């Protein structure tokens, strides 16, 4: 039987380049296992062979994630690995990030990859949807158990096993949802679930509750009367004619609508394009979505100093939360660069 070729990835410390002072080490690769890789090889048995070990400094990876991943890829691929194993990173955030980034990059080119981390490692949340991450203890004191777990998972992957539920094989759940067909109709399952709930018996919800961290409440830098205020919306505002062809939903884009010189929003200047609600009322008077006329009044009265001349807008229908966060971040950055002090988001 053909041996399964494994490439192992380690950071500067476990790769025996040094400590913190070597955290800027450039990507490199050498044949065979290194450091903990030897213990891993002992557990992998005869069929799986660590043909090479790639090593890189954690700071290098943190500072240049994409190019470092590309460089490592270029070093790893010539070994034609069937699998890449990274770490384990235990509770080290930067090492975890490196492992996660590399595994995701390998997965993207079709090479199965896996790593191991402790549950509080921030890289778990960031990468569990992109790669298998085995649960490990917090420090290198738990190396033996971590390598046992990694080796066991590696055997499964080598056998071509389809890992449909990571949590069932000692990994963190991916935190993802996918469509499926169940054995019974929803009505049957709903009645079953309710009766169990009423009887105090355990049941499993088919949709779990996410936890969102609270958003920091940024304080205004200066009094309102001296502040620049911006209006923002997710209700689908676009310049008249939608010149940028903004989608009416399911998008990762936003647009900048100029309100310079306008005392109110009019159909000559703007329109509304959003697939998630009946836009007849806001198209009849767009100030019902973005309150420009009232804002101008208050600006003239000096309630605040200046109304920012751009309304950043998107259509929020079906927006993936990762896109929403990124759009929010980009709009926030632009407003901050423009010295805007406060923003009001009107949302449908």
């Amino acid at each position: 039987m053909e041996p399964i070729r494994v490439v192992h990835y380690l950071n500067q410390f476990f790769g025996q380049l040094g400590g913190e002072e070597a955290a800027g080490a450039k990507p490199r690769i050498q044949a065979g296992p290194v450091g903990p890789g030897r213990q891993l090889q002992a557990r992998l048995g005869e069929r799986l062979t660590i043909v090479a070990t790639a090593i890189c400094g954690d700071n290098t990876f943190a500072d240049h994630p994409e190019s470092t991943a590309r460089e490592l890829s270029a070093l790893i691929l010539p070994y034609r690995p069937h699998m890449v194993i990274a770490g384990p990173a235990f509770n080290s955030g930067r090492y975890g990030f490196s492992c996660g980034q590399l595994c995701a990059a390998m997965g993207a080119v079709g090479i199965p990859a896996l790593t191991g981390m402790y549950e509080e490692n921030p890289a778990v949340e960031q990468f569990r949807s992109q790669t298998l991450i085995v649960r490990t203890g917090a420090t290198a004191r738990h190396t033996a158990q971590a390598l046992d777990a990694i080796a066991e998972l590696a055997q499964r992957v080598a056998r071509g096993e389809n890992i449909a539920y990571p949590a069932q094989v000692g990994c963190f759940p991916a935190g993802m949802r996918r469509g499926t067909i169940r054995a019974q109709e929803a009505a049957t399952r709903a009645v079953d679930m309710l009766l169990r709930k009423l009887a105090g018996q355990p049941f499993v919800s088919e949709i779990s509750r996410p936890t969102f961290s609270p958003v920091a409440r940024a304080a205004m830098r200066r009094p309102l009367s001296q502040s620049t205020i911006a209006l923002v919306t997710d209700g689908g505002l676009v310049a008249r004619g939608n010149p940028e062809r903004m989608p009416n939903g399911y998008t990762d884009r936003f647009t900048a609508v100029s309100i310079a010189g306008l005392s109110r929003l009019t159909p000559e200047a703007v329109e509304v394009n959003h697939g998630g609600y009946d836009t007849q009322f806001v198209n009849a008077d767009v100030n019902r979505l973005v309150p420009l006329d009232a804002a101008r009044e208050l600006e003239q009265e000096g309630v605040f100093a200046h109304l920012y001349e751009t309304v950043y807008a998107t259509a929020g229908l079906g927006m993936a939360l990762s896109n929403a966060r990124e759009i929010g971040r980009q709009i926030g950055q632009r407003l901050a660069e423009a010295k805007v002090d406060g923003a009001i988001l009107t949302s449908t």
Partner: protein
Amino acid sequence: MRQVAEMVGSPRIVTGKSVLHPTGDPTLDESGERALRRRTLESALEMLAAGEHSDAA
């Protein structure tokens, strides 16, 4: 919708009139709508202004 804003952790929320017209109300006449819109915006600005300012330095 207010519940969505609360769920994702928004620190400042003003409840608008309706999903179909957050800062408007077609059942009101023009002056009524403008007054409503102004009040909604004033609430939002008050919320921004409330709380400490960071040090000017």
